[in-house]
């Protein structure tokens, strides 16, 4: 697996950061954010050449594609995939919420001359505009880079896409449509229109004077998430297939569940029944009881609404055990990279299993009395971990959950 998240440039850097409770949220540098209500974000100091991308890739690809391609190449290398694998049995699944939003807006600004013309001027059009227009191009880039001929596509279920993409890939392997899936998610939404749209509904934090402390999941002072960019790609394969190849196995996707709240495009039900159902489905598919969950990686976006909703859903799924299980939100540190974060959080869960260490919820200094579970505030905690749960929730009403498990070899 490979992660690119704010504050680091590789998987080791990512784990170092979140295991030490450091936050990467800062004042936006991608553009001048002065006019916006929320001026902070999680950004990656991404140099395409240093990341091994060619000049042409750097010109052609939107940032979301670049992040995905870099992660894909690194993940494939780590997994030791080589040409002995039949390309027809190799597929790609990329979760993504907002496509090539950054490049779309940059192109729009030029073609419309800063919004002045409704009838945009075709003579300024980039030859790559069609790729930005159609987000399938992100999966295409990843598939071409590894020569995949199996099932390839983008899973775009808003902010649960990162979990859903992996759930989809695991299903394709289970049903026999592929032996190996290169799966994960990417999003690069730190662009004015995306910042503006979350401003409009006050979903993002206005803590501009304290970027590092801006995202405060489960804290009584929380006031929204920090928008972020990021990507994670993982190599999934049937357990027997991996054992035959004799390579280290980082963990197992043991169960997955997803529902729609069918309630509101941005609002959440008070009780969180739909999230409860998603968690219950994931536990059932993994054939584990609530009490066997050693850690919950929360959606923990840090909006007023989410953290209450999620706390309620965890209680309804795990019962009294909810008060014992450690829970944390890494969005306090790396922000909310929309469709990407679900895969980044799965990677964080696998790293937690590997290191027997639970990353903390940073910035949780004044607990909200209504959020009354153990959110592992401020500092990481050592723990024997065997089975962990990750949860996601997103616009459109999507609720997803996944159970990850350590594998004995």
């Amino acid at each position, binding site marked *: 697996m490979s992660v690119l998240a704010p504050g680091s440039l590789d998987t080791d850097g990512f784990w170092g950061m979140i295991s030490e409770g450091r936050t990467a949220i800062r004042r936006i540098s991608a553009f001048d954010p002065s006019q916006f209500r929320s001026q902070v974000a999680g950004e990656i100091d991404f140099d395409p050449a240093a990341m091994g991308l060619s000049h042409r890739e750097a010109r052609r690809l939107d940032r979301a594609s670049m992040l995905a391609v870099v992660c894909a190449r690194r993940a494939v290398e780590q997994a030791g995939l080589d040409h002995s694998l039949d390309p027809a049995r190799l597929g790609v699944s990329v979760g993504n919420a907002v496509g090539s939003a950054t490049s779309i807006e940059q192109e729009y600004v030029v073609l419309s001359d800063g919004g002045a013309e409704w009838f945009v001027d075709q003579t300024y059009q980039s030859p790559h505009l069609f790729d930005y227009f159609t987000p399938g191009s992100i999966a295409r880039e990843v598939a071409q880079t590894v020569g995949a001929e*199996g099932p390839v596509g983008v899973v*775009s*279920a808003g902010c649960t896409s990162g979990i859903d993409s992996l759930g989809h890939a695991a299903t394709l392997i289970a049903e026999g449509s592929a032996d190996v899936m290169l799966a994960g998610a990417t999003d690069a939404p730190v662009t004015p229109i995306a910042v503006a749209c979350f401003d409009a509904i006050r979903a993002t934090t206005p803590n501009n004077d304290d970027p590092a402390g801006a995202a405060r999941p489960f804290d009584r002072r929380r006031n929204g998430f920090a928008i972020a960019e990021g990507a994670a790609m993982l190599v999934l394969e049937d357990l027997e297939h991996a054992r035959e190849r004799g390579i280290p196995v980082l963990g197992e996707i043991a169960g997955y569940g997803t529902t729609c709240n*069918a309630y509101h495009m941005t609002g959440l039900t008070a009780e969180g029944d739909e999230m409860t159902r998603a968690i219950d489905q994931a536990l059932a598919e993994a054939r584990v009881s609530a009490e066997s969950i050693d850690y919950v990686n929360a959606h923990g976006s840090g909006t007023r609404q989410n953290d209450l909703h999620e706390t309620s859903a965890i209680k309804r799924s795990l019962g009294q055990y909810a008060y014992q299980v450690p829970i944390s939100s890494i969005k306090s540190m790396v922000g909310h990279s929309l469709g990407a974060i679900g895969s980044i959080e799965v990677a964080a869960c696998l790293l937690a299993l590997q290191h027997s260490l639970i990353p903390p919820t940073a910035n949780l200094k004044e607990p909200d009395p209504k959020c009354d579970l153990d959110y592992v505030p401020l500092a990481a905690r050592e723990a024997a971990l065997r089975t962990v749960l990750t949860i996601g929730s997103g616009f*459109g009403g*999507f609720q997803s959950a996944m159970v990850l498990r350590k594998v004995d070899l």
Partner: protein
Amino acid sequence: MSPTGCAVTGIDVIAPTGLTLDEYWGRTCRGESGIRVIDDFDGRYHNALAGVIPDFVAQKHLPGRLITQTDRVTQLALVAADRALIDSGVDLDQRDPYDCAVVTSNATGGFEFSHREMQRLWTQGRESVSVYQCFAWFYAVNTGQISIRHRLRGPGSVLVAEQAGGLDALGHARRNIRRGRCSMVVAGGMESSFDPWGWVSHQASGNLTPARDPVEGYLPFSPAANGYVPGEGGAMLILEADDAVEPGRGYGHIVGYASGFNPRNDPAYTRPLRRVIEAALAEAELSATDVDVVFADAAGTRADDAGEALALAETFGPYGIPVAAPKSGTGRLMAGAGAVDIVCALLALRDNVIPPAVHVQSTDLPIDLVCETARKTPLNTALVLARGAGGFVSALVLRK
């Protein structure tokens, strides 16, 4: 439940050739075209031909509060979903909401809505941006809005693979049913992005026809093929578990599906397309000789048409199977195309008729293309193909 399939019990289409299912099917069988010169642009753009839905008035179908918060593509999707549900006769009050899901494909999002909001942001500042922008344009919007409107809480999803995505959505909906994740799915694809900003983005594919005469614009498999015409529209279908459908109800069964990818920038590399055809047929427990008609992807460019014809000739023999390309009358609908082709194929199976490729007089490729007039012939099994820009390939098999 049959091990391979699920049933289609409700369908609806909104296409350049018809605002209703009956209108669409009638005009499709008569070989009528919905392609025209797009009149909003006063000829200022390189390309001019589009498959446009002329008379869709959202206010006739949807409440005002939904119209305010949605792009045209979502309005089309909501209306098609409403009508497909009615067509199916499913009584949602009698269903567990968690047992019913929505799976859609949408390749370009709510583009016009986003265009308007970007213009507001860049000319008037952030306070003028709509509170609905955060969800009106993103690719998941149609699944979200349909699920809310009908209280469908099952495993919703959105799959994007450009023009192949419509088949992938139906294939995934069937997967959900077969795996017991739910027993009913609203599934399909819809596309609409013909504001100026969307239009220029379409043009950037480099494969739009330069023709300005509607009869010359989209001529798949023809020696005169010169590119494609983009269209708007799509279809929604209701899928149910076979065992929940009493005999005689519904339009047919989805019995096989497979998807793959061509990583080479070479349409003559036919292995991925042949393989998904073989895999979809194998899943359906059918052989090539069982197939009665193929609904082709019909790209409209010489190299891509030749590649598809070669794959068909390799699989079914030269001129070995009737090939349908009715989408030449609607244009290429991106994510909407696969769903419309499935509806078209189901109606073809029902009426034992293969609709013609509109505007196409003949082909010089080794396939039996049905052109000029519809062909009456007994039909039991149809294969539907789709390819998405960049290499996506999908195949789906339907049985009467």
